[in-house]
């Protein structure tokens, strides 16, 4: 059978960074083709190329045998390729029917909008997806995420999509909704639509996919029919390399417990977390998106203060009700999203690095510019920040260097506990290694480091201990020696084992 879409030898670079190397990949009609890889493996870039958002540097794309070139997402849509993005692109103030037909609404012979046809068409599309419960006249803004997703899929179908790309469609969904979505995807498949399905949830992949393609570091690792792989073999395809070589973790003497959590909860997203962080130790938290990792960090740091349990510092119970009190207890937090929570981008490196200790740098209200300048220059040297100087605006720096500025800002507070949430997300391999080396060095100097990461190799490579979270709770703990990709991966998805059976039914 001729593939709906076939890409061959696709390459793409951003500046000097090669993000895709010679990727070949095809999707057949009526097939769910899962695309797997760690963060940064190139999945998103590949999706964006197929959907016309990015243009490849080399290689070609064929749609039903014809070579095509997409200058824009519009071109791709016209050839029948629709994408359901993680952040849904719907208009909250318009109704379901209006959203489904936005941009290609049926017209009457007077060229006015044919509301009846629109509503009937939307109804029929939703019915064909077994979504009889969705009212076509409801404003989309009133719908849940799960329902919006179904509207998005109906929209794709209304444009006669032959290929639907779904980028982590269940990441933000509760289990019941996720299961529903899977049945919608099966309906799509029955209609002969080809589906590219990106997900980190292994049970879903085994329940849905016909074939699986794995990418790693922008390279094609392999395409296999689902029957020929196991969860373990997929994880090892994704992770690939020997972890010990990549992460220069220096063994350090582990000291006293600095921070201890006893049954700490926050509403229902963080459930009874108990853990100890000791001086010189790097503790990694692994888990899927939505497993409560970041929420735990936010609670320790007082952004979402604990609603239950106890946090102790040096064995003494403390109340952390704001980032300011967390800071005064010697806790530092390098947030998940640099742009949103880490940096004041219109300001200079100097101003960013001193932000968390302005009160300490100020004498009689006046900030000591000499000490501040010295701090900035020292940080640039110590963290290897590549910049023209301390007065360069932070927004002009590359991602890796921005991350070093955030790190420098927090190290300037002389913390004893350092929480790093996705410390190397979205930065290139070289800068990653530098951040890892810095992290290791800081632990060596007696800091207790808590690292959250979605990249399994990073967690396994950097941590002295690995905690696995699921559903807001810690479900497993491994020593460095026991923490193998298979064991940790299994714990992350363990709910999965019987869920697979359930989903497949």
């Amino acid at each position, binding site marked *: 059978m001729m593939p709906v879409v076939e890409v061959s030898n696709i390459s793409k670079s951003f500046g000097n960074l090669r993000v895709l190397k010679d990727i070949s990949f095809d999707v057949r009609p009526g097939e769910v083709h899962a695309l797997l890889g760690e963060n940064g493996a190139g999945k998103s870039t590949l999706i964006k190329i197929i959907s016309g958002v990015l243009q490849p540097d080399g290689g070609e794309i064929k749609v039903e045998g014809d070579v095509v070139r997409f200058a824009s997402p519009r071109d791709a849509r016209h050839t029948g390729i629709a994408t359901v993005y993680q952040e849904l692109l719907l208009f909250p103030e318009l109704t379901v029917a209006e959203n489904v037909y936005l941009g290609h609404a049926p017209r009457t012979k007077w060229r006015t909008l044919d509301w009846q046809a629109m509503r009937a068409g939307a109804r029929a599309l939703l019915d064909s997806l077994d979504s009889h419960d969705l009212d076509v006249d409801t404003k989309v803004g009133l719908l849940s995420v799960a329902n919006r997703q179904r509207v998005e899929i109906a929209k794709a179908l209304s444009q006669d999509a032959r290929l639907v790309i779904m980028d982590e469609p269940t990441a933000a969904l509760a289990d019941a909704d996720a299961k529903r979505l899977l049945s919608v995807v099966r309906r799509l498949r029955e209609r002969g639509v080809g589906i590219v399905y990106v997900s980190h949830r292994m049970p879903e992949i085994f329940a849905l996919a016909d074939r699986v393609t794995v990418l790693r570091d922008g390279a094609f690792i392999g395409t296999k029919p689902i029957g020929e792989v196991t969860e373990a073999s997929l994880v090892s395809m994704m992770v690939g390399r020997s972890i010990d070589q990549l992460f220069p973790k220096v063994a350090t003497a582990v000291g006293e417990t600095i921070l201890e959590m006893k049954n700490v909860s926050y509403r229902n997203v963080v459930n009874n977390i108990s853990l100890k962080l000791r001086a010189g130790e790097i503790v990694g938290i692994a888990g899927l998106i939505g497993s409560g990792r970041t929420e735990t960090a936010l609670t320790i740091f007082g952004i979402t203060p604990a609603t239950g349990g106890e946090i102790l510092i040096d064995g003494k119970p403390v109340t952390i009700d704001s980032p300011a009190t967390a800071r005064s207890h010697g806790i530092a937090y390098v947030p998940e999203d640099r742009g949103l929570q880490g*940096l*004041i981008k*219109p*300001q200079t490196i100097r101003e960013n690095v001193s932000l968390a200790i302005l009160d300490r740098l100020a004498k009689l209200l006046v900030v000591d510019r000499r000490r501040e300048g010295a701090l900035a220059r020292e940080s640039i040297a110590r963290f290897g920040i590549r910049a023209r100087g301390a007065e360069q605006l932070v927004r002009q720096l590359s991602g890796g260097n921005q991350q070093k500025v955030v790190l420098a800002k927090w190290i300037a507070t002389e913390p004893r506990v350092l929480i790093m949430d996705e410390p190397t997300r979205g930065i290139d391999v070289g800068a990653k290694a530098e951040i890892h080396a810095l992290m290791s060095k800081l632990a060596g100097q007696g800091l207790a480091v808590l690292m959250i990461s979605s990249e399994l190799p990073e967690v396994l490579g950097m941590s002295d201990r690995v905690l696995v979270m699921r559903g807001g709770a810690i479900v497993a703990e491994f020593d460095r020696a026991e923490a193998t990709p298979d064991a940790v991966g299994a714990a992350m998805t363990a709910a999965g084992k019987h869920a697979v059976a359930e989903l497949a039914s």
Partner: protein
Amino acid sequence: MTSPLATPRLTAPVRRLATTLEANGQELVVFAVIVVLFAVVAMINPRFLSDTNLTTIFSGNAYVAVAAIGMTLVIISGNIDVSVGSLIGVLATISGTLAVNGYPIIICWLAPLVVGIAINAFVGVLVAYVRIPSIVVTLGMLSVLKGGLISATAGAWINDLPPDFMLAQFRLFGIPSPIYFMVALTILAALWMRHSGFGRTIYAIGGNPDAARVAGIRIERSIVGVFMIHGFFAGIAAVLFATQLQVIQSTVPPNLELTVITASVVGGVSILGGTGTVIGSTLAAILFAAIGSALIFTNVSAYWLRAVQGLLILATVLADMARRRRLR
């Protein structure tokens, strides 16, 4: 990645100049426009540069510049105050009423400051703690103050102000006092914004409130503080306004809030918060005063002033967006 940024082999002074220009572009542009305007209008009508006229331009509008300093801080923090004109009207009336009733002059001068700070502390609490957007709070405040003022005074003018009260008519070395206030307050505020911890906090909050919070800054307190400082400047502006003429019209100076906001924006404050300086807003306030006067001296209808102000806002916002795009 770094190659397009590394400007080829500039000497240090040149590079420093370039950085200064890049950072202070808006202020320099406004300053240049002022110079050109004065030169052109003086050529058309030399009386433009007469002592009386220069006094009117600089001294008569100093209160706008002073109010714009506070407004600039508010906008840098990511907020806005559309009620400042009404506030100044109320504070000026309070000041004048105290004066004609024989209160000590110093009380008449300080009362508007205290009341201004108190009113804006309330506004700040609503914005920061109750989390009502500042535009909504101050729109409400605008009506409350304006309505209250008209009801309380029935629109009567305040006459027979005691001569000692007339702070704005006082001269030192032949220069009217409002000019000293304008210059001194601008310089102090500029230094304070640049060098004090709190000033830098304001920039951080406007630039990225989430990052500022995560950095341990107490945002709510800081925002209340910004509004209180703004109230202080409004108080000084009100005293200068109340004491410059023999009468106080107990009404709100028409469109004062717009003029003040425009001065801040044209002076280089990004309406999105996080950037800008008070030097720019003072220069822009002077520019508006000069434009108003220039229209008269070149026999152009004064009604054009509003249109020119509007065009200036649009031009500056466009320039700001272009600059942002380039810096990104």
